[in-house]
């Protein structure tokens, strides 16, 4: 096809050739082409087949309002080729066809539409029931337009960007550019988003002129130049706005160009105010076979010629409802298109200059006429025009039918921002009846079409937006208001909903093959609200995001039901433009915290797991039973990175009161330099945390929480003391301090080599606390505790020194054979001692008493109003609660698996943790069982998954299993 190479409006570079592979053949396009325009230039007219009826589909719009030109590009399905820029070497394939789009042997389905009325699948294929699974497979195969392979790897760089500005302008047409320039006069930061690769909007391709005689395309280029020269306007071209959220958070994505470092970029903009200048798309004209290849919207035909240099046909008929259609006819005629007839739906109201121009060119014009039927199989060959009432028909030959009922404002941004939408009877648009705060409409979407009015409305909106964002624009706003008011306002819109047709082949939604007849059927079945019809017929739920039926569906429903005076639009949902998951995912950060000892744990062979917000070394060998790690702690000395522990300091005159409120124990009895193990409960008495509290000195405490609770603890304490006005300070030291746990009979010897304090049980007893300074520099808090049941020290060290202290201990311990142990070894060691881990030996409903930790609860401190105490009192005598018990298998060689159930004829509990204990040689563990089964000696029946009816048996035994008197950890 010959290109119109010399037009000043072109956005292609005809000399720069690009090639693509289409159905195995190499074809040529040029830089600036979209994939579809390049194919069109090579004679492709049928791009795809429709979802249900396999009807041929061609180029209809250029902005992706329907799936007509969706193709597979480089293995990516459903690419809207009409607005995807061509890149050299692209591989393009057709989708959803048997054969080719041109010759699809499934095309016969189109003749079977009578079998498929609205919602037919709900009424069929279920009798007899055996039919359904078979039918379902066929439905699945037939549905779903594109194909993605299970091992597909998306290539490219996906960037993300988080922008702050005072004003965001959506839409880079004349109104948007005017708005951005006006807002920028304030000195504020302005962001301008334009979905096409270039600024200009509806001015970009038009040669009609402004009042001053400047062609519109030239005016657009002037404005674009000003925008680009304005330092405080940041322009994102080829950027589609996709979401609007609370407080004017706008999201968008940008498609990278040849020189960009990204393929696509997710952009999130926080600005104070927003101008919406998104303009209009066209409202599709509904008539028989209104989506035949060769039927095209006005802007599409016009831009094909003016932007891409491609005359879209040789012989055309126009059926339009607005002046842009007449303007396009005149311009395309001048570019060489033969026009057999222009049918204008409107009886009157046309721009007289355009009518004159048509007359001068001897183009026949029929007022009050409309296309009723497009003829031709795979392409339009002829069109039947009729009067709007359907009284008279005439036929005209053509290979291009330019059809458009009117305009549809792109109001998506308003709807996403929770605007209420109402029908505007002048324009026929759905417009916001309440505009969201600090959001301002501008340009054609308000109904104005006059070029000067478009710019003026943009300027006014820009000034208002800057003011709303805090700028003082003086009397500029008033002046702009006056200027805008002096120009032509919103124009009357064309109200025709459909041509006079029965509608069996008149498509209201192309993506879902929904016809006017289908809509009527749905309404007759009681689906009388557009939103319900959308669900029932699927109209508007396809890849075009409702672009085709969005405006017509509610208009048609209102007209057909006649009972509703005001049409109600369906909801528009984000993303306004379909967006790749890859783009949304961006960098796809992996967000985990590392302890100060992370690197050394890796070096020591740690096998890591993500546990909560942390990455932790769970194992130190391939033996996930951790035998060596465990025995080394029991018999020698092991060292563990415990830095994930929650660590806090609370101090001040009322610190003790706060502790009394949240901890079940009486902390007033705690003496300086001593440690108390205790627990926190929620209002149900259920245990939410356990840890130790150290009294450093009067009114000054240091406390630890489980790793999982570290994040919530400050809020928890604050929340439960919020009405008391107490004076205390609370600091989260979790990330500021590392924790080293050194455990085993030789741990004291190792520690003694490193520090110079008395470690004897008299000077530093179990539950004791010491502070010391290592190497005159490193402040260490040391606690003597026994979670794993051996002599054990926990050293809390400033994070930056933790590695140094760790290295000292490792070096000192070398002669004893010190080695790391991980979280799993610790899990087994503490299990042998029946020390609970919350979440492992407890569930949400497990209270303090259920865990056997009732001894921690001090009932006498009533004044403290301890959280959970009331519930504990009430639940104390409840029968049937799940209690934590120790259990031992009858067969010591067959531990039950964690999670196995305790049953009789019902479920009575479950095994929380069970292992074959290396230390005792027994299969022991802990279980939560109903209180009736909790007595020592009770025989328990265990139901394991996949047990095939074979039960295991265990007995309730005393806890703990290892060193019951605690001599090892206390001596």
């Amino acid at each position, binding site marked *: 096809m010959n290109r119109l190479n010399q037009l000043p409006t072109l956005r292609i570079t005809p000399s720069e050739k690009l090639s693509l592979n289409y159905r195995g053949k190499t074809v040529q396009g040029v830089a600036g082409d979209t994939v579809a325009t390049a194919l069109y230039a090579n004679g492709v007219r049928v791009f795809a087949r429709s979802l249900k009826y396999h009807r041929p589909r061609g180029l209809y719009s250029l902005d992706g309002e329907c799936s007509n030109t969706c193709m597979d590009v480089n293995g990516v399905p459903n690419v809207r080729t009409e607005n995807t820029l061509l890149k050299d070497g692209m591989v393009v394939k057709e989708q959803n066809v048997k054969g080719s789009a041109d010759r699809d042997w499934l095309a016969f389905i189109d003749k079977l539409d009578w079998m498929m009325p609205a919602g037919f699948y709900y009424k069929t294929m279920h009798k007899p029931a055996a039919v359904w699974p078979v039918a379902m497979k066929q439905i699945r195969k037939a549905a779903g337009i594109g194909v993605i392979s299970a091992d597909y790897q998306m290539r490219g760089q996906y960037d993300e960007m988080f922008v702050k500005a005072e004003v965001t302008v959506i839409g880079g047409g004349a109104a948007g550019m005017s708005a951005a320039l006006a807002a920028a006069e304030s000195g504020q930061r302005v962001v301008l988003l334009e979905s096409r690769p270039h600024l200009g909007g509806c001015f970009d391709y038009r040669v009609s002129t402004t009042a001053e005689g400047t062609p519109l395309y030239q005016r657009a280029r002037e404005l674009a130049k000003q925008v680009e020269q304005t330092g405080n306007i940041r322009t994102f071209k080829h950027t589609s706005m996709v979401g609007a*959220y609370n407080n004017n958070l706008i999201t968008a994505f940008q498609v990278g160009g040849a020189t960009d470092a990204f393929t696509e970029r997710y952009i999130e903009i926080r600005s104070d105010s927003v101008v919406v200048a998104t303009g209009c798309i066209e409202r599709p004209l509904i008539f028989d076979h209104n989506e035949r290849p060769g039927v095209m919207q006005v802007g599409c035909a016009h831009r094909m010629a003016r932007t891409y240099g491609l005359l879209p046909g040789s012989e055309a008929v126009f059926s339009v409802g607005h002046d842009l259609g007449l303007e396009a006819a005149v311009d395309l005629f001048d570019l060489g298109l033969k026009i057999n007839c222009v049918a204008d739906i409107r009886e009157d109201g046309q721009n007289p200059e355009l009518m004159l121009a048509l007359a001068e060119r001897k183009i026949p014009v029929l007022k009050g006429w409309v296309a009723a039927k497009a003829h031709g199989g795979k392409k339009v060959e002829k069109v039947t025009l009729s009067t709007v009432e359907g009284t008279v028909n005439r036929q005209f030959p053509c290979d291009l039918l330019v059809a458009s009922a009117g305009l549809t404002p792109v109001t998506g941004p308003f709807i996403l921002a929770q605007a209420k939408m109402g029908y505007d009877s002048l324009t026929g648009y759905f417009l916001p009846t309440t505009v969201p705060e600090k959001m301002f409409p501008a340009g054609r979407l308000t109904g104005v079409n006059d070029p000067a009015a478009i710019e003026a409305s943009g300027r006014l909106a820009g000034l208002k937006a800057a003011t709303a964002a805090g700028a003082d624009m003086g009397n500029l706003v008033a002046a702009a208001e006056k200027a805008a008011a002096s120009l032509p306002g919103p124009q009357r819109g064309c109200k025709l909903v459909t041509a006079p047709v029965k509608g069996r082949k008149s498509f209201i939604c192309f993506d879902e093959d929904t016809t006017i007849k289908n809509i009527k059927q749905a309404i007759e079945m009681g689906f009388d609200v557009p939103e319900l019809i959308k669900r029932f017929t699927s109209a508007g739920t396809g890849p075009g995001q409702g672009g085709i039926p969005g405006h017509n569906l509610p208009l048609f429903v209102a007209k057909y039901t006649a009972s509703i005076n005001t049409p109600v639009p369906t909801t528009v949902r984000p993303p306004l433009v379909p967006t790749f998951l890859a783009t949304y995912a961006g960098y796809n950060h992996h967000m985990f915290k590392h302890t100060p000892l992370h690197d050394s744990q890796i070096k020591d062979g740690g096998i890591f797991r993500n546990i909560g917000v942390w990455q932790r070394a769970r194992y130190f060998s391939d033996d996930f039973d951790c035998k060596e790690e465990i025995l080394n702690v029991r018999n020698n000395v092991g060292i563990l990175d415990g830095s994930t522990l929650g660590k806090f300091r609370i101090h001040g005159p009322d610190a003790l009161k706060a502790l009394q409120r949240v901890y079940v124990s009486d902390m007033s009895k705690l003496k300086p330099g001593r440690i108390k193990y205790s627990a926190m409960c929620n209002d149900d008495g259920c245990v939410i945390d356990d840890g130790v509290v150290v009294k450093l000195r009067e009114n000054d405490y240091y406390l630890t929480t489980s790793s999982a609770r570290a994040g919530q603890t400050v809020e928890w304490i604050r929340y439960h003391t919020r009405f008391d006005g107490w004076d205390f300070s609370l600091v989260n030291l979790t990330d500021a301090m590392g924790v080293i746990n050194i455990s085993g009979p030789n741990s004291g010897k190792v520690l003694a080599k490193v520090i110079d304090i008395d470690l004897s049980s008299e000077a530093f007893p179990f539950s004791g606390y010491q502070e010391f300074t290592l190497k005159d520099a490193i402040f260490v808090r040391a606690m003597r505790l026994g979670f794993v049941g051996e002599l054990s020290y926990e050293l809390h060290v400033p994070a930056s020194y933790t590695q140094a202290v760790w290295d000292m201990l490792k070096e000192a311990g070398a002669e004893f054979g010190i080695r790391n142990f991980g979280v799993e070894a610790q899990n087994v060691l503490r299990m042998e001692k029946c020390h609970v881990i919350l979440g492992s030996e407890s569930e949400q409903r497990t209270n303090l008493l259920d865990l056997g930790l009732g001894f921690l609860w001090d009932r006498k401190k009533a004044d403290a109003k301890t959280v959970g105490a009331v519930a504990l009192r009430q639940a104390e005598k409840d029968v049937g609660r799940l209690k934590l018990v120790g259990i031992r298998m009858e067969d010591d060689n067959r531990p039950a698996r964690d999670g196995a159930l305790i049953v009789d004829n019902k479920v009575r509990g479950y095994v929380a943790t069970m292992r074959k204990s290396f230390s005792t040689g027994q299969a022991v563990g802990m279980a939560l069982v109903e209180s009736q089964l909790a007595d020592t000696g009770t025989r328990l029946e265990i139901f394991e998954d996949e047990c095939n009816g074979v039960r295991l048996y265990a007995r309730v035994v005393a806890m703990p299993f290892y060193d019951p008197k605690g001599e090892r950890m206390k001596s």
Partner: protein
Amino acid sequence: MFWKSKPLWGSKTRLKSNYDAVIIGGGLHGLATAYYLAKEHGITDVAIIEKRFIGFGGAGRNTAIVRANQRTQYNVPLYKEALDLWPVLTKELDYNLMFNNCGNLNLMHSEAAMKSARMTIATAQFHGVESHLIDAKQAKELVPALNISEDITFPIHGAMFHPPGGIVRHDAVVWGLAKGAAKHGVHIHQHTEATAIHTEGGKITGVTTSRGRIHTPRVLISAGGYSAGLIYQMLGIKLPIAVLTIQAMVTQPLKPLLDHVVSSGAYHCYANQTLKGEIATGAHMDQWPNYTTQNTAHYIKHQAEALSDWLPCLRGVKFMRIWGGLADMTPDMAPIMDGNDHIEGFYMDCGWGYFGFKSCSAVGKYMAQFMASGNCPDMLKPFNLRRYENHQLMGETAELVSYTPNN
């Protein structure tokens, strides 16, 4: 012919001044209860009062997953019965509910998760429900698109495979139940708002609606996310329910890719393919209580990040539509079904969070029995409201949850 168009759920009727029972909320639970009241208990003089249109709320916003692999013995039998009812209802209602019995795959990403899955699986097997623990390789065989490599945020350790579950076309259930209820004489009043419930001497006497007053001895509130608010507003009963927004989304339609429902707790993400070919995905709730169905920017981004990890081929697919719905969460993630306690003739069926769809058929059956007899069926007894008063949470969730600022 068999597809002759006539109103599916009866023509619009006048609102009568007397009904034997009034159901507030034209969602799945209300419709199902009405259907069973009329069909099985002969109480056909029933009005459903729906403020918008049937299926406006959670009924039309869920992602249609059905399963019976809950954690406790109270829930599993109820959901099992609900599962068994899909084919039965399809036949009874003569409406294709499109049950795709594809099975559910619940991914586990840690040793701890495998342990909790084992308990859930044992519970299912104990109740005769099929469910198995499988390893990552087996999971990959079922879902070839799965990424089972070690270098993702939450490497897959294994999965809970639950073959009896799947997907049901949720809108079809709404319309089918409406059709069935109307056929048995139930009046469905859309665009009608209930504004007050009247009691006298501790008994229900009537309901005031935007279209007039109704005298009735029985009222059920089954208004999904709006239930707790309505119950408090109309009767002053405070429920331990926090309402949160939950969002879901679909991609553009694809040819068959996922043959099972796949979900992941660690990623807060599930994915299943609708019959139309879209990948439906969603999962976690917004963390703050609210009654809007607004979307948030982080949600769709999070979903993309999660799917990029464990179903990486979807990076080449586009999101098409996201929407929000309400989840009315109780502290133990189990619903409240109660009635005739405190106020005679008042029933409530709420607190379903995000499980309301999969349970609706069985719940309708039992709530109808409850309302017809006035006595709570054994199946529903564990779901009474008083369990919260008695600090006896159901245990449907193992983890501590906190949806309200109060706890």
